[in-house]
């Protein structure tokens, strides 16, 4: 039944990550990728990737399947190392990063225990954890299955849980890999509202998505990659109004062959 009350997964203000953090005013970028190159199994999966990530707002990372978006996100998150090139961070950046993987990886524990575990690793004192978990459960709309084993959740529920988990440490940088791929329309809308709110509070978000409408709705700027190379980057409106590269044009039209 439709409920007139506000949706659960719109984040209450006081739980918004980074809400007590001022925007980094000094540097013009939060991180700077310089000529990143990543090879595996003899194939060059990323090559000559250079860009500066603006210190605030939402950047959409677009590109066809197998373009290297997930790899790039893992490079930025420090989970894999480039074969050459480097990533420089704004010295003022505290390193706090939240990450949502494309495939949800959850502990073999209950939903609550998954969140508790993440909070413990983020060194949140025990007294605060219970309250935080309750907030996060409301935000991810998972209160009704808090005690279920996390791996028995539905696909969309799992994705919402990994999103909540990425926010436990109120990160300065949020790397999201297709976080709404399995979400229903309402949850997607909730997610978009949430990310806009988080971004407004000063968290930089990098979002991989194949939902071009979504990118258009919430992204401030776009990076488009294809076959491991950046083909275009710029403000969202400009990108969608008239993609300059033929690849980006074909991608948006749904006719790009990988």
């Amino acid at each position, binding site marked *: 039944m439709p409920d007139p009350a506000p949706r659960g997964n719109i984040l209450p203000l006081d739980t918004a990550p980074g809400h007590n953090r001022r925007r980094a005013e000094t540097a013009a970028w939060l991180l700077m990728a310089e000529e990143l190159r990543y090879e595996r199994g003899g194939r060059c999966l990323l090559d000559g990737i250079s860009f500066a990530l603006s210190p605030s707002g939402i950047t959409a990372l677009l590109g066809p399947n197998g373009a290297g978006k997930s790899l790039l996100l*893992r490079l930025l*998150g*420090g*989970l894999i190392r480039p074969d050459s090139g480097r990533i420089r961070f704004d010295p003022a950046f505290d*390193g706090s*990063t*939240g*990450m949502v*993987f494309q495939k949800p*990886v959850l*502990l*073999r*524990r209950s939903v609550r225990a998954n969140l508790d*575990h*993440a909070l413990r*690793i*983020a060194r949140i004192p025990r007294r605060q954890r219970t309250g935080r978990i309750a907030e996060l459960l409301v935000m991810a709309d998972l209160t009704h299955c808090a005690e279920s*084993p996390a*791996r*028995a959740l539905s696909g969309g529920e799992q994705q919402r849980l990994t999103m909540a988990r990425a926010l436990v*440490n109120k990160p300065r940088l949020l790397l999201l890999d297709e976080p709404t791929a399995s979400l229903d329309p309402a949850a997607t809308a909730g997610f978009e509202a949430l990310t806009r709110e988080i971004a407004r509070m000063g968290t930089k978000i990098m979002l991989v998505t194949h939902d071009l409408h979504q990118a258009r709705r919430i992204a401030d700027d776009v990076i488009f990659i294809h076959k491991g190379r950046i083909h275009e980057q710029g403000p969202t409106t400009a990108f969608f109004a008239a993609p300059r590269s033929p690849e980006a044009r074909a991608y948006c039209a749904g006719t790009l062959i990988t």
Partner: protein
Amino acid sequence: MLDGQIIEIVALSLRVSVFAVILAALIGVPLGALLAVGRFPGRNLATMTINALMGLPPVVVGLGLYLLLSRSGPLGILQLLYTPTAMIIAQMILVTPIIASFSQQVLSDLHAEYDEMLRAMKATRLQVMGTLIRDARHALVTAFLAGLGRALSEIGAVMIVGGNINHATRVMTTAIALETSKGNLRLAVSLGLILLGLAFVINIALVVLRTRLERQAHA
């Protein structure tokens, strides 16, 4: 002859082996986790060493300890030779590689799944190890069972460091060997079956435990 003593012998077997397995688990599981998680130089060598140590002959462990603990040995003053403590140490040495190897295998597989997720959370290596051990705990029970089986059935080491001394360090296996050497083969086999029954009972207990753990984990 053994009817009266059998309880004493069974009790000592249990006490020594269970203790040894607990100690071995306390060392072996973290060691296995470290090898599963760590990316340090010499890790492969360490893994191979631990695997090879599963082939450590009990007699050699017994002898090594004997040379250490004997009156004239470096640790002779501890007076541990021919005590249950020495037997526990010997079995612990034998069981630790088994538990460590097994743990390493099980935890490696889980680590392949959890690694990036945990690193993205900036978990310390210790936290990673703890998480893996917790989530694989039902699989680790098999490692403990393997270790316990080895400890309970082991004879070479406890014979040398325990001495099979009547009323002091005689356990099931050494009692079986004694009856065998006396030619009482049927009695020896009966004792063996009692030992097996014991292992079975412990298994039921642990499998019930594991089933609970599995249900908790919903693997």
